[in-house]
């Protein structure tokens, strides 16, 4: 089954074109890695997929499970199983983590026609997911990401993903800022979520992550386009040689 199909996607922000014709197909169960230089448009692509305001889609289409995603509000996408782990998770003082997790889970369950979990079942479920990412329970009662270290914020994103069990997860540089142990823990958490019904797009700058979470495909996004695709060996090649050897990279980008 095709989970995601992006066809000739062009997107602008404040009149400036950032995505310049992206084509990408992700089948159910596949893990795709997207690499590419700073400013290439990787986070822009994630934001557009999650439905953030401020981008204008000037051409192309995005199909999620065959349904046109572009007309849906961010919450409608989330409820249907699209999940974005943010490159820079935002702090929300005054909203406790546990409140957020509950509200998010209930929003998804409501869409699926399920009842809210009662307090005990909810807590049992959250605890099992925290176990997965080795997060201490005290984080439940702290405000969302407030005062969290960089690595704790990233783990918190994966906790939310583990709880919500999305069909399509986009992980925007979840590995950056993680220490070596945390990288392993987060990767194991992500691997545990790999499933034939679940697809993942991992944006990363480092081959290291791909040693832990082995992708089915690797793409290079450069200057708003996917300029090269291959298997996991492509990432190793990039690690060795940078981006400059990619001949069809448009001018002005590269190492």
């Amino acid at each position, binding site marked *: 089954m095709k989970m995601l199909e992006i066809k000739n996607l062009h997107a602008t922000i404040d009149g400036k074109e950032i995505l310049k014709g992206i084509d990408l197909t992700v089948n159910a169960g596949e893990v795709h890695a997207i690499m590419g230089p700073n400013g290439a448009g990787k986070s822009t692509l994630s934001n557009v997929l999650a439905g953030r305001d401020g981008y204008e889609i000037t051409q192309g289409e995005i199909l999620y499970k065959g349904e046109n995603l572009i007309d849906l509000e961010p*919450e409608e996408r989330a409820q249907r199983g699209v*999940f974005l782990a943010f490159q820079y998770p935002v702090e929300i*003082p005054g909203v406790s983590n546990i409140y*957020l997790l509950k509200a*998010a889970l209930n*929003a998804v369950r409501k869409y699926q026609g399920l009842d809210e979990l009662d307090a005990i079942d909810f807590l049992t479920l959250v605890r099992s997911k925290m176990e997965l990412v080795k997060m201490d329970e005290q984080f439940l009662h702290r405000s969302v990401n407030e005062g969290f270290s960089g690595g704790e914020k990233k783990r918190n994103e994966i906790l939310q993903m583990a709880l919500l069990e999305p069909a399509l997860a986009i992980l925007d540089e979840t590995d950056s800022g993680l220490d070596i142990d945390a990288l392993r823990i987060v990767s194991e958490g992500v691997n545990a979520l790999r499933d034939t019904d679940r697809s993942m797009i991992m944006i990363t700058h480092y081959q290291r992550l791909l040693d832990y979470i082995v992708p089915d495909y690797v793409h290079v996004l450069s200057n708003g386009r996917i300029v090269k695709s291959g298997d996991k060996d492509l990432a190793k090649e990039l690690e060795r040689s940078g981006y400059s050897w990619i001949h069809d990279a448009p001018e002005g980008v590269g190492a």
Partner: protein
Amino acid sequence: MKQLAEIHTAFIERADDVSLLNTPAVNALRQKAKAQFERHGLPGKKQEDWKYTSLWQLGQEQFVYQAVETTLDAETIDRLALVTGSYRLVIVDGVFQPELSRLADLPQGVKLQAMSQLDADIADQLNQQIDLEKPGFNALNTMLFSEGLYLHIANDIQLSQTIELVVVNSGKTANLAVHLRHLVRLENGAKATLIEHYVAVDDAATGLNDIVTEVALAQDAQLEHYKLQQESVTSYHVATMAAHQAEGSHWHNANISLGGKLARNDVHSRLEGEAAHLTMSGLYLVAGDQHVDNHTRIDHSVANTSSDEVYKGVMDEKSHAVFNGKVFVHKDAQKTDANQSNHNLLLSRGCEIDTKPEMEIYADDVKCGHGSTVGQIDMDQLFFLRARGLDEVSARSLLTFAFAVDVLERLPSDEIKQALSTVIEQRLPRGAKV
């Protein structure tokens, strides 16, 4: 269109009918206040303190003084009260309700009564904390107050149970004017928790509450003093809370305004003994065409006193809020530690905030800071919540709630904090439940 003078006359004519505390000393005070009010009347916009709050609308009203009926059942009071299991003094439509109140079994040394039930002459305790010379509501209140709460706690008595003053507008008498004076005196080392709660049975209730609360804290006395103004959006509320703090005393004042057509609070403390400490916390939440105005004033008069003030506000639709906070550090008040802040959240284009934190410092060895902010819902936070599946209305509501309840974290009582948080959740602009 009426001039303010007409409502002045109406108020003055009322003065002869007031019979509470009918002693020569109190009557002399009332006469003095009347003369003062005849001279100055209500403040106009030319007065600096009233620059952003017009009384024109109030001047158009025809208030009545006699409630048609003041009975309410106990269930209604239980429903309206903020906390359960406290001592309670209930005033409905300006009239003290002994059957609905809970004043029995007070510990030795605690005197808690309605003003109308007092046997002693308390004239010498009146107008100790307020300034009659200033045009405003102090003279009006002195002239017309006809009920109130009297609390006196003797040396070293620590009252652990909360006292809730419940002042209800039953809605049975349209445009009822109620003038109340409360006196709170804590002697050396005494301790108490008091809630002043102004509430309407429903949003159709109209009228004016004109309130003055005078607080005297002796050495090492501690008062947790909460005020919740939760009246209808069509009513007027004008209140002063003024305190005198002796050495080592702590006044913890929390002032929650859910607005009316017009709500004005003046909160003032004079720290006149070393090591006196003041905490002021405030929250105002307004929508529609409501107007809320908070003026606070803190006088650090002697050395080694401290104050910590945080006011937060949420405005929606066409509402208007005013915050004016003055902190005076007088010449001899060395080592004063004073902090003041005011933070505002604007939810729509039509609303307005005038904020002015001010410090006047005449001592040289002090630690003082102040600031104010005006902001909107953070777009990154909003997108994050929506990307986790919360619909836009719920997400906005949640962020608004989080902004507001932050102030409650400062309150020492968990029970009151919890109760206030529920009230605020229900009053959130846009009404969505979080």
